[in-house]
């Protein structure tokens, strides 16, 4: 047990720092720091810069284009990205579907998709939830019927993040209705340009369009786009959700939010002094910070277990639960720091057309959008209540 960094680690830290200082586009940094959704153009531009450096996929095996970093290096990179307000790659391709492809896919699927994911040539979205299937995901009804070398897909997905940007969707579909729900599901990769797919935007609490409904009307999908075996999709889906939970804690970004909160609290007034001197504010921030520190080391412990060959079951659900709770407490406190300037709110469409800047201080632009959007954090990726069910069953054996 040892927390020290080697000389190589410190050199690596400098390399990451220097790279981010020069390579990270200002507009991308600014949106991420404020907690605004990325633009497609900005995110893809940044992703390609990362890919040129070879740093898109820290968690992939090296043979597929992963970085081959040690735990220390992963920790350092995540920390530095967080402190520089540098976004990581979008999760849907790199973090979600890619591990499914390199673990369960055919050679042809790996050759076709993985390089395109690394270079952000395809924007991926996730076709899991349906109007009638949220927490009870396995009850999904979107049907895929075999027709020669194709499946014909009919049905509807919902809450599909950034479907409007997407070139590809990975989809859970029902291929057998006569068996137990979990045993009749298959995992398909579908080109979003296929005839019969239509998208309807959902405007969220933040008045932005990040969520969508996706409709499938006699969509023909080549059988070669199926991952693994027919009717074994639930296995791959659960594998994906397990991976998702480890990345979802967003410790590094939360650490940066703590720093921002402290900066803003030194400017905002409270009584005769600043918010930074207000005992209630100080106590709230300290409690979040301590929880975050515990989460940071829990994540490192789990990464270390995995690296040392231990198989975890549902332990990473803890990271999802705690990580998202902390994110919400941070955005709540951030909005609180704004005082009355928490109230003015213009969605980006309206904001973009103005030329007089945000109402109130510059840092007031973003926190409310982030606060509203992140109410979803304890719902998406398996709600925190579902995560507790999973831990109860898998870890505690109840």
């Amino acid at each position: 047990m040892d927390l020290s960094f080697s000389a190589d680690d410190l050199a690596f830290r400098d390399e990451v720092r220097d790279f981010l200082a020069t390579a990270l586009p200002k507009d991308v940094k600014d949106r991420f720091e404020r907690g605004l959704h990325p633009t497609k153009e900005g995110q893809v531009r940044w992703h390609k810069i990362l890919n040129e450096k070879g740093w898109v996929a820290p968690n992939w095996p090296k043979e597929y284009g992963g970085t081959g970093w040690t735990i220390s290096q992963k920790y350092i990179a995540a920390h530095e990205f967080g402190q520089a307000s540098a976004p990581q790659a979008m999760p849907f391709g790199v973090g979600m579907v890619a591990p499914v492809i390199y673990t369960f896919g055919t050679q042809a699927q790996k050759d076709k998709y993985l390089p395109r994911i690394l270079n952000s040539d395809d924007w991926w979205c996730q076709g899991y939830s349906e109007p009638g299937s949220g927490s009870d995901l396995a009850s999904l009804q979107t049907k895929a019927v075999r027709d020669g070398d194709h499946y014909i897909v009919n049905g509807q997905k919902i809450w599909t993040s950034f479907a409007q940007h997407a070139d590809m969707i990975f989809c859970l579909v029902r291929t057998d209705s006569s068996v137990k729900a979990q045993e009749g599901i298959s995992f398909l990769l579908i080109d979003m340009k296929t005839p019969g797919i239509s998208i309807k935007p959902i405007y969220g609490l933040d008045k932005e369009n990040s969520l969508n409904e996706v409709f499938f009307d006699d969509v023909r999908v080549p059988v070669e786009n199926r991952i693994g075996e027919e009717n074994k999709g639930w296995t791959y889906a659960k594998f994906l959700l397990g991976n998702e939970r480890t990345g979802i804690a967003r410790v590094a970004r939360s650490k940066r939010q703590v720093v921002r909160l402290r900066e803003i609290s030194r400017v905002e007034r409270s009584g005769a002094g600043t918010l930074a001197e207000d005992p209630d504010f100080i106590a709230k921030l300290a409690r979040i910070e301590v929880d975050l520190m515990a989460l940071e080391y829990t994540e490192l412990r789990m990464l270390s277990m995995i690296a040392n060959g231990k198989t975890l079951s549902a332990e990473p659900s803890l990271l999802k639960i705690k990580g998202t709770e902390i994110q919400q407490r941070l955005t709540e406190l951030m909005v609180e720091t704004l005082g009355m300037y928490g109230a003015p709110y213009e969605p980006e469409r309206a904001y973009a057309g103005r030329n007089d800047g945000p109402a109130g201080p510059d840092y007031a632009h973003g926190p409310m959008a982030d606060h509203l959007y992140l109410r979803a954090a304890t719902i998406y990726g398996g709600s925190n209540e579902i995560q507790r069910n999973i831990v109860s069953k898998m870890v505690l054996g109840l």
Partner: protein
Amino acid sequence: MDFELSDEQKLLKDSVERFVKDNYATEARAKLADTELGFSRDHWKKMAELGWLGLPFAEEVGGFGGTAVETMIMMESMGRGLVLEPFLATVILGGGLVAEAGSAEQIEAIIPELIEGKMMLAFAYAEPQSRFDLNNVATTASKSGDGYVLNGHKAVVYHGTTADKIIVSARTSGDALDTDGISLFLVDNDAEGVSRRDYRTIDGQRAADIMLENVKVGADALLGAEGKAYPAIEKVASRAIAALCAEAVGAMQTANEITNEYMKQRKQFGVPIGKFQVLQHRMVDMYMEAEQSKSMSDMVAMKLDLGDELDARKAVSAAKAQVGNAAKFIGQQSIQLHGGMGMTDEYSIGHYFKRLTTIEMLFGNTDYHFKKFAALSS
């Protein structure tokens, strides 16, 4: 960065766990806690033979050069069985202060005997008015000839009942809250002018309020430089906090295991109560708090060994705050999930609750350390 135990550390863990398993079944512990001494001298001898009493000390003073990580491993395993022997009082606190502040002669006179199990120590730092502030020292030590005369009231001195020597913090100069002007003295427990009010604590241990009335000590009783003891006190208190965090982790994990098992056995409405979602989610929250605490306990041990002082102090307060919160939550909810059974003195779970409750107080409670952490972070 490395979070795994070395092979030697794994052996140590196994060895302490075996000791706990062999000697600390619920009934055996209850019997021991009820004896006049409150622990077992045979166990203490065994701990000395196994080398545990010398583990945290440097090799130069006859120790085995263990780090805070080894202490963490031992304390966590001892926490699993709620071990009663005064390892913290004698080794971490008493021995720690002697090794940190003592002269070569003092170290030579005390540490080897301590390691052999022949000398027990206690640290009298608290006073009725001091609450958790180590610098709040009203006890005085005035120069008298070659030596000093001590007067004052030391509060809740864990194992002050049985220690051969008490290490007393006393003011040689300065005002009530000054960090400067605090000195440490080695006082024989049976010295003239020392009187004690001995009592039991809720966690089954022994403690005493100690009155010092014109207690004369020689110049050789002064531990470290006169008036300059505070940094050593703070440093040793940090190690004690890390050790207590580890002990709490062992106790919390065990309380969770006991409660989890009970939820599988206990049936109501025809099913094990562990089938009820509201109880499942409570248990998951308890599991998560124990895991978060384990992370903090490991982290703080490693940070103490790393040597960055400010970072270590922040880590100590953060860990104590997190562990304190978790200890209260897990202790209280363990009782709740056991229902009426949790209320009995005979059953094991209440003893975990009680020790966790005192750990939360020792060396500063949760609120105290949140404040301290915030002050260090701003």
